[in-house]
């Protein structure tokens, strides 16, 4: 009950903040100080938003972006969790892979995008590979840290009950690491969205990033802002999905806040 009241209070505060933002924007747009090309009014943006939502073509563009982001993310999740758990539980894997990841971590992988275009073509594959690569690092790093910190008593008791190595990894280490894994997922998901939009802005003929750049290039600022709103909403929705999934799977540990990294 108390939690519910807190939730409504913070929700109300967010709505109030949003309302203030909308009013300020609308006032700026109507004041006539700026051309509608620079600050289009909310109603124009809303109109364009409706235009976007009501056309199946734009749903297809959004689907392209989501598909790429989720494809790269899913690949990174599978490979990243396996590598991270392996590094956490095997000294050999940690000594080989650890330096590889820590030395290439600060290198912006986006620079490899042109090579990927040559290798994998200008379509979805080069983008998915780049998203995979950028998402892999946070997932590996957090999973590695988490699987090293698994409670020894759990491991000992499982070993005592005679589980095999594979069962130990799958039934003890992975569930115990799950909170960390999801922390990595929450860092990786916005990265996937960033990279998909960037790559679509740089080279693409479809997707939301392309749509935003195309609208800007054709001086349809209101439409561009509508696309930006859609991208922002998608980012928030995907983040919420990760949080929901986390609460479902990691039910034994409640996060006090969702934003610690």
């Amino acid at each position, binding site marked *: 009950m108390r939690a519910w009241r807190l939730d409504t209070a913070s929700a109300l505060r967010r709505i109030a*903040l949003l309302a203030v933002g909308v009013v300020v924007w609308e006032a700026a747009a109507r004041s006539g100080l700026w051309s509608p090309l620079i600050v289009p009014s909310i109603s124009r943006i809303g109109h364009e938003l409706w235009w976007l939502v009501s056309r199946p073509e734009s749903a297809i563009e959004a689907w392209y972006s989501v598909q790429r982001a989720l494809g790269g993310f899913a690949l990174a999740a599978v490979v990243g969790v396996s590598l991270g758990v392996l590094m956490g539980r095997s000294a050999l894997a940690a000594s080989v892979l650890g330096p590889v990841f820590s030395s290439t971590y600060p290198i912006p992988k986006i620079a490899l995008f042109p*090579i990927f275009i040559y290798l994998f073509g200008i379509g979805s594959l080069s983008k998915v590979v780049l998203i995979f690569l950028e998402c892999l690092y946070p997932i590996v790093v957090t999973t590695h840290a988490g699987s090293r910190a698994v409670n020894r008593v759990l491991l000992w008791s499982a070993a005592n009950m005679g589980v095999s190595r594979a069962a130990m990894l799958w039934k003890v280490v992975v569930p115990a690491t799950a909170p960390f894994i999801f922390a990595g997922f929450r860092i990786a*998901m916005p990265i996937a969205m960033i990279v998909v939009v960037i790559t679509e*802005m740089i080279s693409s003929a479809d997707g939301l990033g392309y749509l935003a750049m195309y609208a800007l290039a054709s001086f349809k600022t209101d439409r561009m802002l509508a696309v*930006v709103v859609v991208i*922002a909403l998608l980012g928030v929705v*995907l983040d919420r999905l990760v949080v929901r999934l986390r609460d479902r799977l990691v039910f034994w540990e409640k996060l006090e806040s969702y934003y610690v*990294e």
Partner: protein
Amino acid sequence: MIAPSLLIGVLAVWQFATSFQHPEFILSPAEIARHFVEALWSGELLPHVGASLARALPGFALGSLIGVTFGLLAGVARSVDQLLSPAVFLTYPVPKIVFLPIVMLWVGIGDAAKILVIALASFYPCFINAYYGARGTSRIMVWSGLNMGAGRAQIFRKVVVPGALPLVFAGLRVSLALSFILLFSTEMINARSGLGFLIRQSESSLRFDLMYVAIVTVAILGYTSDQCLLLIRRRALAWQEAGR
């Protein structure tokens, strides 16, 4: 010991593989090294490095300074917390690159737009980490400080800030990596100078030598700046490192 030998092994395999028939967009490590030295001497590379750094560093400095300051303040003062945190946490999952077209529209397509977007992106991790760093301040420390007659400003400077530093540095590290990602992508999207521009331009004019040189430079810049930050952290957090 394993890492250098692994690196040498990969380079050797790469070098060996390129001695066979291969597409022309793949260069051998020896060729890349030769072109790198050439580009360095001919002055083809350095102006672009300068242009990139002139965008990344002010953007990162601006965003992280504002982020850390307001994050710490929101962590200690409830009024700042209630004013800022909902907005920051609501917009956190929004991919910040979408603001590039808007910012371009408002301040033009020059360096200011890129610096602003980089600052915006590096603001978030710094704010969030500094916020939790300040909120995690040990109460006993604050109480003992108060007990010994420290003022509010003194408590902030001598208890809250040092306590939050490990998380602040974690945030700075994420921000630094993010600011480089945004730097190169904004330069690839539109610019007339900088390494991202160089990669794009040499790619589209089929000058693969220059493209690889630029990519190697990007890697070196990312790696070096991260190492610099880690060095500063080791200095600033000597007390924490000593305990480990």
